[in-house]
């Protein structure tokens, strides 16, 4: 049985990611182990098969179709001045989509001076009903200050996150251990925020500066009153800064 060290070296060599010293170590181990050489041969076969998989030709009309369907945003100095920008990512048939579109339109194009609390109003537009506060998390380090609060409005679970960071911070919201049915995210884009959704188990956002965003879930048909925990991870440059959990309840 060969150990993981030589396997790791062989994998690294295939990817051209070994140092000279590691290459020398691999060569030495290969010279001493028939099993390591067999492992290398098997991995080299796999590598070759993957590299031999042919490139797929794109459908002829796809390029033109993409160009036809993209509406580039028209940037203007006034629209993107110091005004807060509001945007929502609404997908998967969210029930309040029409209300959201209206609200986004108003906030995006009509306001340079949105009063505090408007984000909450927009959340309320998307998920009407009285808010029941369920759980919260707050922390402050040298790099980031954040609060996260979980609330329920009827059959919608909402996680509100506020961030203030000098450097880009990644926030990962992992809801794999729950039966929550992801619906959408909503951003208050005063600074840089990119949201990447993995709709069934996690939402990731990268933020810099002051930022607010919210994640919405519906109650799944199979949900019980007591859900598993939502895990929040804050990291910077791949290093975990803070982790916490919030517990939803229906």
């Amino acid at each position, binding site marked *: 049985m060969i150990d993981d060290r030589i396997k790791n070296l062989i994998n690294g060599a295939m990817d051209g990611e070994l140092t000279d010293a590691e290459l020398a170590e691999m060569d030495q181990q290969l010279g001493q182990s028939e099993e390591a050489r067999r492992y290398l041969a098997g991995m080299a076969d796999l590598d070759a098969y993957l590299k031999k998989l*042919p490139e797929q030709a794109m459908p002829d009309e796809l390029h033109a179709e993409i160009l036809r369907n993209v509406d580039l945003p028209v940037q203007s100095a006034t629209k993107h001045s110091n005004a807060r920008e509001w945007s929502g990512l609404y997908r998967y048939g969210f029930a309040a989509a029409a209300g959201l579109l209206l609200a986004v339109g108003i906030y995006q194009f009509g306001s340079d001076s949105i009063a505090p609390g408007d984000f909450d109003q927009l959340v309320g537009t998307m998920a009407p009903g009285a808010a029941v506060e369920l759980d919260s998390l707050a922390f402050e380090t040298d790099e980031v200050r954040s609060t996260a609060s979980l609330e329920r409005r009827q059959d919608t679970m909402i996680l509100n996150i506020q961030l203030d960071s000098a450097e880009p911070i990644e926030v990962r919201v992992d809801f794999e251990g729950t039966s929550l049915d992801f619906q959408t995210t909503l951003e208050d884009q005063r600074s840089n925020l990119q949201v990447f959704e993995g709709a069934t188990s996690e939402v990731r956002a990268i933020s810099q500066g002051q930022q607010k965003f919210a994640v919405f879930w519906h109650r799944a048909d199979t949900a019980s009153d007591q859900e598993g925990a939502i895990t929040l991870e804050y990291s910077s440059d791949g290093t975990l800064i803070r982790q916490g959990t919030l517990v939803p309840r229906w």
Partner: protein
Amino acid sequence: MHKERENELVEACQKGDRNAMDILVRHYERTVYNAAYRMLGNPDDAADVTQVTFIKALEHIDRFNPKFKFFSWIYRIAVNESINQLKRRKSTESVSDIQAAPGPGPDEMLHSEQVGKEVQAVLMSLREEYRSVVVLKYFSGCSYREIGEILQIPEKTVKSRLFSARQQMKDRLEGLGIITG
């Protein structure tokens, strides 16, 4: 494409320049389509994901931060869209469902076509987080660092996922007699 050139094109797109958009799309569309194809194993789904990827990226290009690489951004959207597409269709593909790659090598067509289908099927059998690193490594030519940027995971996680993915693929292809152990 050099970062400077890419930034110029992105800036031009942000100003509404459709010629710049055409150049950016043309530069990345084949790689995005192929990555999506290898994630999904189906040309129609790959075309859908490719189109949605570019629409989402370009219609939000005013929010793109040039500190990030455009290709990292677009591949990340493509990978996430592919995963979402898989969830939507609740894929249960078997080997026979995978559509074969057309016209491989000249002299071993039947053999390599079959092997290609088997390799794609084994790729499809991997969990999505493993499949995405294999796809980005082999079909988008990304380094560990680039894959980490795209998937927003540390390089060591890229390395360990690639290791596990290869091990699983090797074991399964050995089981099929395609690789000799």
